[in-house]
């Protein structure tokens, strides 16, 4: 198992270099001058040119990329933000926990709501409950996040005044953003749980358990659930990644100071080190989540456990 984990971690290195390369290329192709953005629109051109030279922006592409990779890998230095001049790592560590909290909370909500609803829907396939849940799930998938966010603000913050509309200070602040962000995941996990459950409860081994005279509740909880969750875990893992990266819109709407917003602003401000660092961080988080998912897999499924040795 340890060998497996370390192999996976090693495999991460080329992926991250690949990610860095893609981002670097994209940024390189992006029009706009970081130096200008640093100095503001009223600054004279000489100042901008000087700064460009100083930042090494006039060097050829591969020199810049090589320098970046060298610094990042050998010196563990992701550079400093062009704009705030703070170390990228520090900037990201400031916002990462927020996004992580937001995404985790959304995930928890999605799992807590999605899995039970999915299970009940599957058990009561074709019932009214099932139809209602499925329609809601589809609506959840279909609703643009930002619209949902606006509606929630309008209702809970403006109309009812129950919850704050912005900031991310207390649990109360987190509810609306987490719900907004998690809506799609709730829907997706519900659907996935349902279809996976439907598949599982038709399996022979469930029939075997029923033939033992086991109570239906235990048939589901003890036998069907474990198996049905396997694909759900994958989806949940993917969803978590999406939540991490997709928090952008939610963060914008609720003025949550997270990675997503930082990234979007950094892209707009041409703050390359932040964009690069941010994408790398997210890619790492993503890969770590994937690894955890795979380990979780091994935990629930002995067949997969056997493969990891």
């Amino acid at each position, binding site marked *: 198992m340890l060998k497996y984990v370390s192999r996976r971690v090693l495999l991460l290195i080329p992926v991250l270099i690949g990610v860095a390369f893609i981002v670097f290329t994209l940024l390189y192709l992006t029009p706009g001058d970081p130096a200008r953005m640093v100095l503001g629109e009223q600054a004279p051109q000489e100042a901008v040119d000087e700064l460009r030279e100083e930042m090494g922006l006039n060097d050829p592409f591969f020199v810049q990329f090589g320098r970046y990779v060298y610094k990042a890998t050998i010196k563990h230095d992701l550079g400093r933000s062009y704009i705030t001049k703070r170390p990228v790592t520090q900037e990201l560590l400031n916002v990462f926990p927020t996004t992580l909290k937001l995404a985790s909370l959304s995930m928890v909500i999605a799992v807590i709501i999605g899995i039970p609803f999915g299970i009940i829907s599957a058990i009561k396939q074709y019932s009214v409950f099932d139809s209602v849940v499925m329609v809601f799930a589809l609506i959840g998938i279909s609703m643009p996040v930002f619209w949902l966010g606006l509606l929630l603000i309008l209702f809970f913050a403006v109309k009812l005044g129950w919850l704050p509309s912005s900031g991310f200070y207390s649990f109360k602040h987190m509810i609306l953003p987490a719900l907004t962000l998690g809506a799609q995941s709730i829907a997706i996990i519900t659907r996935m749980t349902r279809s996976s459950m439907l598949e599982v409860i038709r399996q022979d*081994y469930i029939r075997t358990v029923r*033939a*033992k005279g086991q109570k239906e509740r235990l048939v589901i909880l003890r036998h069907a659930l474990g198996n049905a969750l396997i694909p759900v875990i994958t989806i949940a893992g993917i969803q978590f990644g999406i939540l991490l990266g997709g928090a952008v819109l939610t963060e914008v709407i609720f003025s949550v100071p997270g990675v997503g917003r930082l990234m979007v602003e950094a892209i707009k401000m041409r703050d390359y080190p932040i964009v690069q660092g941010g994408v790398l961080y997210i890619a790492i988080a993503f890969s770590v989540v994937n690894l955890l998912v795979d380990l979780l897999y091994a935990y629930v499924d002995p067949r997969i456990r*056997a493969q990891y040795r």
Partner: protein
Amino acid sequence: MSNTDKLLDIKNLTIHYKTDNGIVHAVENLNLQLGKGETLGFVGETGAGKTTTALGIMQLVPNPPGEIVSGEIFFEGEDLLKKSQEEMRNILGDKIAMIFQDPMTSLNPVITVGKQIAEMIELHQNVTKNEAMKKAEIMLEKVGIRKERINDYPHQFSGGMKQRVVIAIALACNPSLIIADEPTTALDVTIQAQVLELMKALKKEYDTSMIMITHDLGVVAEICDKVAIMYAGNIVEYADKNSLYLNPKHPYTLGLFDSIPDLEEEQEELKVIKGLTPDPMNLPSGCTFHPRCPNASEKCFVHKPKMHEVTPGHFVACFLYEG
């Protein structure tokens, strides 16, 4: 057969599957009896309704789309169809156990075999977890698997061993009836022989009755006492094994025997039943076999033949043998 000996008595059982395309008449007015200690071979082509009948007895027909439309299933004198779910659960596993066709998929892949056997024991016997596990070990040894493997997962076993585990589960509570749904079809010949041998031995030891579903007449000859031939949702012939093998009556049974290449004799050409199994959504009128029957007469087109006792204990549903 006197009423007291009857373990199982199915009367006019009808089971339908209601699908989008129409109603599948999987089992249509089926009558069947099974005496205590007997082994019944239940033979028929794919789609004849064998599994559905078995699930009907267990009341595990998937619903929807399946539905037991009518009939009575007397088990030890009581109608199973009148039982509550709770009562039924107490019977399942304890009195009636089932072995499914495919050992590869019959075991929960994420739970150890030991626990799966123990679950059965815990459910029906008043024992602690530990005792159940102990008993599971004993069962495992009974079916010829070392007890050290009790904590292994199904994927660590070969097909034959899995089927043994399934048998161990079925036998764990010493049921009075075992329904085995093609327990060896998925296995290789040599493994099949092992498993059949095991089943024979265990059946003797536990003195259970058994319904053996199969489409292999060879397997039936091997371990059954009685044989029921099923065709398109109905039983067309029912008899003592010897009587049926030596003296098959129904044209379908005859055709079935002729279709099988014989190991002992030389045949240049096999005799075949012409035509195909009927579409269960659209069963032929009268005798369902009439479109394929070489002896079909006008009557067969219109009327459904009833079960008729031709010789003592040998029932046939065919007009050829009536009156």
